[in-house]
């Protein structure tokens, strides 16, 4: 299915101590992925060095159909050690080669309409697969730090992680990431960010316009660099002391979870579609995490001050 093409457009991206090189046959793809794939931090310490290559073909196709199936399809081929992923009824097909540490993606033109999700499908998820080779795990969570205590806030898209993060930043907390984090278990459990930039909805922007600046109403989400607005509060990494699974409610509440409940919630936010041995390793990590890190169910209300007070009372030492 994948054609052999030249890759006239290429770019490099440093992340932690990894170098991601991507090659594409269309400048527009590079532009979209640079816009959407937000990781560009260089590690503060040399722990692991490796190179990963992403080869990305854009394929011309017939007129688009807006009613695609957005479910992820996947299949692991043990003979070739490759994970095959497909999205949008095969409009995006990705092959992760663990042996070669490379990714080949084929994107039909009609899939460009999903530009906000392209970075996730084509780069973030395949990249997180390759990081598993180093025992590093992607989690859909924000990480905020108060007085030296790092707390993860996990939850599905739209639950309010970015709103919570900006709210706590406005009260002086520090932040590693507002959306996706990389967990590095050794030598101790460390969290690395994650996107440098945040995707902010209009209601969240309006609520925190004092910090973010005045803005006209818009649909969807705008990408901003939080470091511009909270210059001394964005940090590269931190240790983890607690984990909150975030839900929405009218008022703030925090209740502890037992390890089994925490583990089940972790399974729901982990990306476990992988080479089976790596999935086992990932599962071992989640099991250990659920038993060692205190976990809570957090209902966030609209009152950021109340949230801050509850976190300080229930979780912070």
């Amino acid at each position: 299915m994948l054609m052999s093409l030249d890759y006239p457009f290429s770019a490099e991206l440093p992340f932690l101590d990894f170098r991601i090189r991507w090659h594409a046959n269309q400048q527009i793809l590079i532009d979209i992925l640079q816009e959407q794939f937000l990781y560009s931090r260089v590690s503060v310490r040399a722990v692991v060095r490796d190179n990963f290559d992403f080869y990305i073909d854009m394929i011309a196709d017939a007129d688009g159909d807006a009613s695609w199936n957005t479910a992820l399809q996947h299949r692991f081929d043990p003979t070739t050690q490759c994970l095959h992923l497909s999205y949008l009824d095969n409009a995006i097909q990705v092959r992760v080669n663990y042996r070669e540490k490379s990714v080949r993606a084929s994107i039909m033109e009609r899939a460009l309409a999903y530009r906000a999700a392209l970075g996730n499908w084509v780069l973030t998820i395949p990249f997180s697969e390759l990081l598993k080779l180093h025992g590093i795990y992607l989690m859909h969570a924000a990480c905020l730090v108060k007085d030296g205590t790092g707390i993860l806030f996990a939850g599905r898209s739209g639950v309010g992680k970015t709103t919570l993060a900006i709210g706590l930043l406005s009260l002086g907390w520090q932040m590693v990431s507002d959306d996706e984090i990389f967990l590095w278990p050794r030598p101790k459990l460390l969290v690395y960010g994650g996107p440098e930039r945040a995707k902010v909805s209009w209601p969240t922007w309006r609520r925190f316009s004092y910090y973010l600046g005045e803005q006209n109403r818009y649909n969807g989400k705008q990408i901003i660099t939080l470091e511009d607005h909270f210059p001394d509060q964005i940090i590269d990494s931190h240790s983890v002391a607690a984990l909150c699974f975030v839900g929405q409610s009218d008022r703030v509440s925090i209740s502890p979870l037992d390890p089994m409940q925490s583990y089940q919630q972790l399974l729901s936010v982990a990306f476990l579609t992988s080479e089976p041995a790596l999935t086992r390793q990932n599962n071992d990590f989640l099991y250990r995490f659920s038993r060692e890190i205190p976990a809570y169910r957090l209902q966030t209300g609209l009152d950021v001050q109340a949230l801050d007070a509850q976190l300080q009372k229930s979780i912070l030492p």
Partner: protein
Amino acid sequence: MKYVHCDNIDWKEFDNESVLLNLSTGYYFRLNQVGTFVWPLINEDHNIGDMVDQVVAKFEVSQRQAKSDIHDFIEQLLTEQLINKA
């Protein structure tokens, strides 16, 4: 009839409960206290009769009920490709 665990299953045990993860699909299944007790008994050394006896000895349940429950449990595990016939 005897059964064995499929190779691609990872089992994590907590207090009286456990979770089976299918490493190929990413699907996971929660086992209650009795399911957690029975899961390690599913191997080439035990048939369903052995499992029923051990469950009756451990829990307050009749032989008839235990036999019915274990039969249903085995059927579910087979359907979800978590075990195979030995």
